């Protein structure tokens, strides 16, 4: 992550008190975790992710940040999220498995 992007990183803890928003859910020696039925949002660059987090309601829907460019989002509200992103000019390409 660039220094600039790092400085502008959105603090998700202000929007949710989940302990695993930015932290791993397992630990060294702990079990590998297989997260099923998740909704993954990937961005081309980390700057775009930060931009979208800042500009849209995505920040309220982030379940976990798993990399600088990818977040897991709330599957229950994915339709509303897509509408909100599209309205702001960030229409995502949807891939259904």
């Amino acid at each position, binding site marked *: 992550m660039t220094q600039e992007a790092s400085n502008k990183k959105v603090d998700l803890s*202000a*929007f*949710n*008190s*989940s*302990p*695993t*928003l930015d932290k*791993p*859910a*397992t*630990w*060294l*020696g*702990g*079990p*590998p*975790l*297989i*997260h*099923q*039925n*998740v*909704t*993954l*949002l*990937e*961005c*081309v660059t980390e700057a*775009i992710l930060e931009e*979208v987090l800042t500009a849209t*309601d995505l920040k*309220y829907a*982030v*379940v*976990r940040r*798993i*990399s*600088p460019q*990818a977040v*897991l*989002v*709330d*599957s229950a509200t*994915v339709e*509303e999220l*897509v509408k909100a*992103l599209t309205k702001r000019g*960030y*229409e*995502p*390409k*949807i*891939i*259904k*498995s």
Partner: protein
Amino acid sequence: MNKTFQILFEDFAEIGRKALPPVANIDSRLTQLGDLKKDFLSRLLDYYSAAAIQNMAASRGVTTGFKQVKLESIKSLVNLFYDPTSIKTMIQKLSPLALDGLQRLKRAGGMLSLVNWQAQMQQQHSKNQTDQAQAELIGAMLMFYATITYNGTEFGAGQRHELTKSGIYNQRDVILWTTPQVLELVPAPIQPVSKAAGWQRYAAPVEPKVKNSANFESLLADIIAFLRYLDLNQVKILQSGDIGKRDFVKLNELMSVKETGKIADLKKLEETGRLSFIWNLLLACGMVASKPGKYADNFAVVQTAQNDEFYALPRYRQARLLAAAWITSNFNDFSRIPTLEFTGGLPAELSDLPEPLKLTAARAQVMSTLESFWQHSTVAAQTWLDFSALVNYFRDLSPDLLIERRFSTTSAYNYYTSDHYYGPEYYNGFTSQLKKTTTGKKNYWQTGVALTQGEDWALVEGEWLAEVFSEPLAWLGLAELGSNENGRPLAFRLTTLGEAVLENRPTESEQALKAQLEQLAAADPNLTKPLLVQPNFDVMILAPLQNMALLRQLDRFADQTSLGDVAMYRLNKESVLRGLRSGLNGAEVQNLLEVNSRVPVAQNITSTIRDWSNEFERLILHEKTTVIEMPNAEMLDRLMTMPQAQKVITRRLGPTFALVSGNSARLDPVLLSLLDLHSPKKTSPVYLDYAGQQPGILSVEGENLLRLKAQSGNPYLYFRLGQFADLVEWNPAQMSATFRLSAQAGQRAQQAGLTYDKVAHFVTSSQPEVVTAQFRHAPELDGPMKLAMRGWLGYYSPPTGHKAIVLRVKTREQLDDIFSIAEFSPALLERSTPTTALIREDHFLRLRERLTELGMPPVAPEFDPPTPLKLLPPLEEPADEPAPTGKSRKPKTPKPPKPHETAAERDRRQREAEAEAQSSWNRSLSNIPLNPLLAGSARPMQDKLEMIQTIQLLNALSNGKIPLDGLLGDDSDFDEFDDDDYPPRPPRPRRRR
């Protein structure tokens, strides 16, 4: 090839057989008739007259004595009833006429109504010949009479059967039947297909006029337009299975062949012709399917795989597939017959309107007969054939082509009186414009003449055949109907495509085109490419109907502007985005254009498409996918190098995360072994399902604490709780956490769009269920938590406070009257009960003043003006009087005025009454303890009254800050008084009216 296409590519006859099984198979009665006991057979034959039995015996070669001829004959005939040798001999002896009759019975499955059989025979033979054949078959014991009632099959009733006449009362109910043993030995009827008479050339000098030209290309163009409309619009499917009016009106505008008549007047799709035809074709061949929507609605969805497969088929295969789809479809071509007038309101069991399956079987029979004939004939395509001969041919081949006549309607229905029901020997439910004679049975108000089943076959089934050639087969490009100047059908002919479809081979033009393209490809491959992409974003497809697969692909990301010999498309951002949304990517779009274009695609086109796709693909959302999280990056590094893991893991997402492809459940064993292998402590992987929410994982502690049970926490649950509560404690090893509800978290939840209902539903459905004797349900939130959550989550709006005076009255009408006046309405804050109003404090004095003026002075001592100190006169202690009781306290009612009372007497009596009332009030005051200290003291009453007056004075001086009632003692002391009577006041003397 998909399964639907496979079924449709079967023989037409096979499609018909699957739609409607042969009659013989569905008639279980016939099986029973092949195995009757001897005593039963004796009774059966006994229903025939002695002459008939004698005839049977003679024909079967049975000799009996002179006496008891019939009984002896029956006994011998019973032995020969199922005897194959005897049956075979009798069949061989039959005249051609009788054999024809028996073959007709066989074709009907072994049972046929007498009326129907006679009608069929009389179409070929005279009435006498028909009677003769009937007598011969009955006399040879190869055919029998019976009737079918609600009780089953009955073989006789009333009179004995004669050879040519049944003894059953109603001849319309008589059926003819034979045994399975006879059916086996009857030779198959000569195939009518070989009869050239059915396929006569039309030889009139006048060329028939084609009603609807066959044009398969226009059908294809309309199908493409139809599918594009379904693709671009969310088209709802109604309960009837059709699309709604709004859609079919719009679709009609897109069709190359528009509906005849005014489409706005039509209410349902089934009332349309070509639109309904195309819709049913698409459903029947699976190119469009119904998909349930979010609620109870169904929507039409274009099936991409089936469409791609269809477009890749050669032209003659496409036509054959659509012809088969028409056969199996629900398209109702019977209702399209222009010469029939349909009359509704008839019960389905009495109506002769063919069922959909019967129509399917009839269409299959027509197509299979055409196919069979064409494969054995030398008639060339485009040759006009006589239509009336075709009608006669089908009437002879299959009298029950559309309407079942094997049995007449049972006798019970003969007494059924209903509109448009004319009787079992008539067509019911419709009449024909072509039968306008004044004679004939008709309903008393119905203008149409009832059609007779024996005579009017050509007006019903014949007209249906004309309709089939005129519309569906012409739309499919297979055949055309020629008519005279009055529009009556004269001739029909197959097209070259129709001939190719029936012979299952490509057309000559198709073969020529293919050869031409191969020749061009050999010279320059680019010349065969159909696409021209111009720098101004226009795209042309040459010979579009020859390149339907490409047309369909281009449809996904370009807007069609015209379709003719050349199809014109235009690329724009919205159309390209539409393609990208449907699953294409930018590279695929560019590749499609470059591969199919005759000239190189301009650079501005490729760069613009790339920009649009890059912009669209900035964000990619994977729904319902699986992600692996490893304890550290090194473990994931090792895992990614494993060949087995590479089959499972799509790519790495982060230091410790990787994306899993496909259904993880299918990959469980592989993952399990891999993860076990790489786990330092051989820890089994933990599967966390974000979609499942089990009850019982959450417990509520105290007023605000929510605790996730051990081993049930996962990041998604932490997220859900973290939306509206603050984290207190988290134990990752135990997979549990505790959260606390708070005002700040509530604010956060509101910003995220959460409401109390959503949060409450999540919390209650996550708690252990409450199990009662009858139900299991989620628990309810307890009071303090419910109030806190509602407050913090904005469920309640902030309350407002006002200074107010309570105004109470005895009856609701009083308040209604007061506040109906505009002057008082500003004073009213709210009506809290029907008899209680909250008055604005600053308006109260004015209100009180006005109400006093109106004779309703409100009793509100706190607002009374201070009164000058005035000692009350001393009370006389009642020496001998008993202690006052409630009864005694009640003021005496003034006596009614005496008759002839003078004014002076009246005034005196009034004064006495007032003095009495004042005295009673003073007595009641003397019973009130002034305060706890004074209560029960033995001080004289005068002291108490002085005390009251002193307090009143002080009260007035301190502007009401010293409450009088506090000094007067406990409220319980006033229990005997109503609130309304406090402070007690002297009752008003009743005034004389």
